[in-house]
């Protein structure tokens, strides 16, 4: 039944509007601009036609079946009435985007309960209220105008925040090289919650990475069970907001006084094999690495750099995040000795090789030799944004080597990121994780290594 939300054959938009700028207009426009191929039924008692679609006065007047209803009505009372109409029509999936429910307290809580009651009685699944639903290539229900199509990616982003599926989704699609396929916000989760979605996407073969943002855990026992299963199959990246002492009580035991919501959530993340992110940027950064790179066998990293100082800094960061920098084997060192004036170490400073054979050639020969070394499981490649970097980037040298060798790489940019951002994003970003800072690349790689090692030991 969850599938009805993501792959409906027909969708009705209640509160649809013909006035550009209004929420009810944006939703219809977003659906129109997506790849949605089914029937679209705008519902509005006062219009006849919106964006070329015939408008219905009520959901019960729609002639065919309605798989999914999206509502953005101005008052909770109207939303409750719509739920009743949906029940009458036999609709099984409803996205309620309007706010003014339990998050407001008081009367809002009562309205939300009425919606839940109608849903339970009629076997309807509800996403929301106070959310912006789904942003995917197949369907966009968000109230934020999308200017680009969602890519056909392998990353799913789910969470409570409406902003997530609205602003953040469109920002990712427009400005970031993240292979997103779905962004989904479920707001107050009066019915459908993270466990439903985690289970659904955990079983979807074309989803490789799940990123999740939660402010409240609906059912932690179930989350632990479901996340364990999902994380065994694919990486689940988890950002927990609102890690406060709320819900803590006057404990009588030592254990009780030390336990906090944050600690318990952290424990659940470790126990289930999920990957903890500390902010929204990490939620995306980690997804970028996991969705593009092969899993490493271990945590032994080669640092490949053009500048000694940066190599030193990265080495420190690697050590702080549980990554080892082993020596290269004597065979590799011997092989590379002509390219270096000094014995090649780790960090591998490509500067000498570049002066001898040029940047592109170095990336094609010296770097892969070090990367292939049996002591090495993964590499941090530090690039500076120069003209010759652009050339190497456009030739997709690193991507080819990653594919060939089967080990993961993160690319950290030190200078020239802004200048070459577009080139790097367009040419490299969808296949290689590129980071504007050393720490972000190292942290993401360390999570990849942890997950890779955990997967092998289980």
């Amino acid at each position, binding site marked *: 039944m969850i599938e009805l939300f993501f792959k409906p054959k027909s969708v009705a938009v209640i509160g649809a509007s013909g006035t550009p700028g209004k929420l009810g207009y944006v939703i219809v426009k977003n659906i129109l601009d997506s790849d949605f191929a089914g029937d679209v039924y705008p519902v509005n008692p006062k219009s006849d036609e919106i964006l070329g679609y015939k408008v219905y006065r009520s959901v019960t007047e729609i002639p065919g079946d309605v798989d999914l209803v999206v509502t953005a009505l101005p008052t909770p009372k109207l939303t409750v009435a719509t739920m009743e109409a949906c029940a009458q029509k036999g609709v099984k999936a409803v996205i309620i985007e309007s706010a003014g429910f339990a998050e407001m307290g008081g009367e809002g809580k009562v309205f939300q309960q009425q919606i839940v009651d109608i849903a339970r009685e009629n076997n309807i699944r509800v996403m929301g209220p106070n959310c912006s639903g789904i942003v995917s290539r197949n369907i966009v229900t968000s109230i934020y105008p999308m200017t680009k199509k969602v890519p056909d990616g392998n990353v799913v982003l789910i969470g409570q925040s409406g902003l997530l599926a609205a602003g953040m989704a469109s920002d990712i699609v427009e400005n970031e090289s993240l292979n997103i396929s779905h962004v989904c916000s479920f707001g107050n989760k009066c019915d459908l919650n993270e466990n439903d979605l985690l289970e659904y996407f955990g079983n979807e073969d074309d989803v490789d990475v799940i990123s999740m943002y939660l402010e409240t*855990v*609906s*059912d*932690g*026992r179930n*989350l*632990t069970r479901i996340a364990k299963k999902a994380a065994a199959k694919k990486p689940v990246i988890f950002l927990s907001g609102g890690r406060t002492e709320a*819900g803590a009580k006057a*404990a*009588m*035991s*030592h*254990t*009780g006084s*030390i*336990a906090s*919501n944050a*600690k*318990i959530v*952290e*424990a*659940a993340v*470790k*126990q289930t094999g999920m990957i903890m992110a500390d902010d929204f940027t990490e939620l995306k950064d980690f997804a970028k690495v996991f969705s593009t790179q092969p899993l490493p066998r271990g945590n032994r990293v080669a640092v490949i750099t053009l500048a000694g100082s940066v190599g030193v800094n990265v080495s420190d960061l690697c050590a702080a995040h549980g990554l080892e920098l082993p020596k290269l084997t004597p065979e590799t060192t011997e092989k590379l000795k002509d390219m270096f004036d000094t014995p090649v170490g780790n960090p591998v400073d490509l500067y000498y090789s570049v002066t001898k054979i040029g940047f592109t050639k170095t990336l094609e020969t010296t770097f892969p030799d070090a990367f292939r070394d049996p002591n090495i499981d993964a590499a941090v490649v530090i690039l500076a944004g120069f003209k010759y970097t652009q050339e190497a980037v456009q030739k997709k040298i690193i991507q080819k080597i990653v594919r060939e060798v089967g080990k993961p790489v993160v690319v950290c940019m030190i200078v020239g990121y802004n200048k070459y951002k577009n080139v790097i994003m367009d040419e490299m970003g969808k296949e290689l994780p590129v980071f504007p800072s050393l720490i972000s690349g190292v942290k993401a790689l360390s999570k990849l290594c942890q997950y890779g090692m955990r997967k092998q030991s289980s």
Partner: protein
Amino acid sequence: MTGPEIIKSARAEKRTVLTEIEAKTILGEIGINCTPTILASSKEQAVATSHEIGYPVVLKISSKDITHKSDAGGVKVNLANKGEVEQAWDEIMASCRGAYPDADIEGVAVQAMAEMGTEVIMGMIKDPSFGPVVMFGLGGVLVEVLKDVSFRIVPIDKNDAVEMCGEIKGKKLLEGYRGQDPADVACLQDMLVTLSDFVDRTPGIEEIDMNPVFAYKAGAAVVDARIILSAE
């Protein structure tokens, strides 16, 4: 009384806090090693029991109404002979009667002075969302100040227990720091799994505290324990 009987009778008395002796009986029954603890309801009995257990002994107030025993002056340790036991009895009674005039005092719990080991804490609480959760950490100051503890959601398996013991910052102390005996970490891991299995199959338990637990080169012993039942 057996564990289920203890819980049943506490329920009948509308009581959620079990006494130390009750808690240790329950834990001992599931296979967790606790220092032997026997109730003495008179001064004479306390002396006789101390002889039986062997000196030195510890006396602790046993009352369903006094949960924070030390705060009430209800604990005397390292008592070496009859005279010290008698004096301790008098002092404990005077102090506890003073602090809790209405408390129903059943006597003192007499227990053997456990051989010192590495001090650890194990516990269980019920989280509103995640349900029962087990905790492990180093005892004493480290738990009070640094809160250097690890949690896992019940049920845990051996692997989780291994991770719990491995992820506390003070794990070096378990490995035998500066000539101290290393702790029997495998035994601690088994205790955690046993604790998890117990709370998983026993509804109605709100909190469990085993603090301190002395970990030895071989084995470990629960020195003090507390069990709190959920309010019904």
